[in-house]
């Protein structure tokens, strides 16, 4: 009897969890017919926001990949004093409340911020510009990529790199021909996570970049603002983000499960540890 009640509680908890997490997502699609949702997406607020979100996310992700990849490689391949501290600090934006991220960006890059005077001397004012959107997205999204990239690089068999080097490959060639291909799944997974986080960025953006249709108003900002104006358009934009996020999540799972020939080739070399 006791065991039965125990099982019932567990099942009830599982059902509650599932229903609680799924219901809000389903509700977005349940309120209005799909045809009407699609029609709402032609609203200029929605099209402008979509275009802007794609543009700023693309720029931010390119920056994250270009700057973050070598940085992650360095952190993964070097052992130095204070490394743990550096990695922790790099991961910090991940757990920061978005509003704190916004205040931090203003305190650092705002006109009266730490670097504000220097930037002003060059005639650069970041606050309330599209560049501010990119900065906000990069700030909150890059730690997700960096974390995953560091782990992926750490998993690369150093003997493989050493072998490439003894066979005459320079450090650059070894990196591009050996390290990158071996780490690519982890890197792709990190990028998918960073992309999803960047696309959803809200708090830091609205504080640091403001909200102007077609200039700084990304999809989440448009959803927030349009809520007071037209609920159907809000639903449509939310539905679109649900679909994109779902696609990213599926892509992430596929990437993580799909293993290139790395497994078998490892036996060609001596065990690494």
């Amino acid at each position: 009897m006791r065991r039965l009640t125990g099982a019932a509680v567990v099942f009830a908890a599982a059902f509650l969890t599932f229903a609680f997490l799924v219901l809000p997502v389903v509700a977005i699609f349940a309120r209005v017919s799909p045809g009407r949702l699609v029609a709402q997406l032609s609203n200029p607020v929605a099209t402008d926001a979509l275009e802007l979100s794609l543009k700023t996310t693309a720029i931010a992700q390119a920056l994250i990949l270009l700057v973050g990849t070598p940085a992650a490689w360095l952190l993964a391949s070097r052992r130095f004093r204070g490394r743990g501290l550096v990695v922790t600090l790099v991961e910090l934006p991940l757990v920061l409340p978005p509003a704190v991220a916004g205040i931090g960006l203003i305190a650092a890059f705002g006109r009266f911020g730490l670097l504000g005077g220097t930037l002003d001397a060059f005639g650069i004012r970041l606050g309330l510009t599209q560049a501010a959107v990119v900065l906000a997205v990069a700030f909150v999204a890059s730690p997700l990529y960096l974390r995953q990239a560091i782990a992926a690089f750490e998993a690369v068999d150093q003997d493989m790199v050493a072998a490439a080097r003894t066979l005459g490959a320079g450090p650059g060639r070894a990196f591009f021909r050996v390290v990158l291909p071996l780490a690519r799944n982890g890197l792709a997974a990190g990028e998918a996570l960073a992309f999803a986080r960047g696309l959803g960025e809200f708090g830091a953006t609205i504080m640091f970049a403001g909200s102007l249709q077609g200039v700084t108003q990304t999809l989440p900002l448009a959803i927030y603002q349009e809520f007071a104006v037209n609920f159907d358009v809000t639903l449509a934009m939310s539905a679109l983000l649900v679909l994109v996020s779902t696609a990213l999540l599926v892509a992430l799972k596929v990437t993580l499960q799909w293993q290139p020939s790395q497994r078998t080739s490892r036996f060609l070399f001596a065990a690494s540890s």
Partner: protein
Amino acid sequence: MRRLLLVTALLAALASPAAASAPRLTVFAAASLTDVFPQIDPHERYSFAGSNALAAQIRQGLPADVFASANVTIPDQLYEQGLVERPVLFTANTLVMIARKGNPDHLHGIYSLGGDSGLKIVMAAKGVPVGDYTRTVLAKADLSGVVGRAVSQETDVREVLSKVALGEADVGFVYATDAKAVPGQVAVFAIPRQFQPKVNYAAAAVKAGSHLAAAEAWVRRLKGKAAQRKLRAAGFLVPGRG
């Protein structure tokens, strides 16, 4: 099982306000009332935002007892839709232009915004009461072009205020009472009387609220001596006929 009951009870306690003798009301109020309402009555639960966003929440059934808007149009609409009781005019305000602390851009008033000034101007979005008032002022002053040059369309007046107070924007349009709430942090420019819109505040009890009688009494008290004294001290005005 007992644990489940405990969790349910806990959730129920969190979701419903304590059913004490004096019910604690949930008051949805315009962002410009952020400082003064808790002074009038610290006992209630407040949610401050743009009046249009609060109205949207009421339309979507979020539990509010009182709605206080920075204009009369929005509560009137909700009244016609049968969502609130008859709105009551309780105070008024004026619009001002604000600039960064110390006026480093040497502005003189709204006409400093004419032409391509290169200034970073922020205002509230269309539909937000203060955003609509700003558009009225600019249209009356023949400066409607300024709207298109704004670098951000905010969702409530306090966001406009903070963008200018932080120095991210150069110029903004807020209520006189907002500028008064951050003394010394922004430069304030009066807007000539002939351009001023009629800024009247109306409050109404929300019909779907669970304490309708108490909510109606609360709205009535806004016109009482004590509340009016607090409003006047914060810079609010006696409502005009609008």
